[in-house]
């Protein structure tokens, strides 16, 4: 019983920490990975709360696909948040 309580509150702390990190972090790639961590903890929560269907969906869509479309967007746009607008770039501006 005690172990469950500690484990669950640990999960809650990781969740909030990952969310704050995702918002504060200037380098967008790490922010996106933090979003993936949020989805991971969420998927664990869903599994604990007896919702296996939703845990699988959150894992498949939340962790894998949402994170990857964010990474693709970063590839096509700027990677750092506080970056001065680049002018000489050709129209696509891809820097992968």
């Amino acid at each position, binding site marked *: 019983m005690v172990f469950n309580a500690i484990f669950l509150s640990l999960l809650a702390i990781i969740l909030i920490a990952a969310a704050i990190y995702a918002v504060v972090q200037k380098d967008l790639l790490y922010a996106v990975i933090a979003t993936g961590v949020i989805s991971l903890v969420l998927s664990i929560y869903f599994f604990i709360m007896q919702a*296996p*269907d939703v*845990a*699988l*969906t959150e894992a*498949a*869509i939340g962790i*894998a*696909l949402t994170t*990857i*479309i964010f990474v*693709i*967007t970063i590839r*096509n746009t700027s990677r750092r948040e506080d970056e001065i607008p680049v002018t000489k770039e050709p129209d*696509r501006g*891809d820097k*992968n």
Partner: protein
Amino acid sequence: MKKAIVILLLAVVGWVLVDTFFQVNFGESRLGELEQQKTVGAFYLNNTVEKLTVANVVTAIVVNYRGFDTLGEVTVLFLAAAGLGSILYRRKEEGEHDVMVLNNSSQLLQTGARLIFPAILVLGVYVFIHGHLTPGGGFQGGAIIATGFLLMFMAYKDYHVSHNVLTWVESLAGVLFVTVGIWGLISGGSFLENVLGTGVLNDLVSGGVVPIIYIAVGFKVAAELTGVLETLLNFKTKK
């Protein structure tokens, strides 16, 4: 200054949410007595096994009781793919061709991808075929298959899924879903009604129309998500 206002606003919103949600005490059953079936959840838990013989009640709700939601849901994904195509549409100048990644990735990823890709496909197909028995279903299976294709996109520079096949699979699966609905309407019942006989609980062919619809949703979601990834991933390089 702006941050202060935002934090104040968030404090108010937070306080209201905390206040309301802690009235809804956690873990307490709000289903009411199961026999009396006042709430919708209780009705589904009691009647799914006899009336639909579908083991996974969530799948029964998603596909049969609230099948109209899933039809809307599949349209949302279909529109997201179409909207993406129209927003990122760029005419191809001459001498350009589509490429996913600038250069081939390492040997390790290539061989690994070649090995795992079929396994991911089989897992995805397994998940959406057994949607009505085990946890999982059309959306989950389709997303897993899309991650499989993603792996191949990343591993090989010019690995292409033919756009033609994707469009065909996507449209046919959607049409199958709607025709199953119309079939229910024609055969006297109502739209999306379960017309097929429901077999024995917990074996593969049970639950009448439910597995057929969820397999169609699985194919459609797989094709759509792969299409979305391909639209986002490829860009035109002068080669």
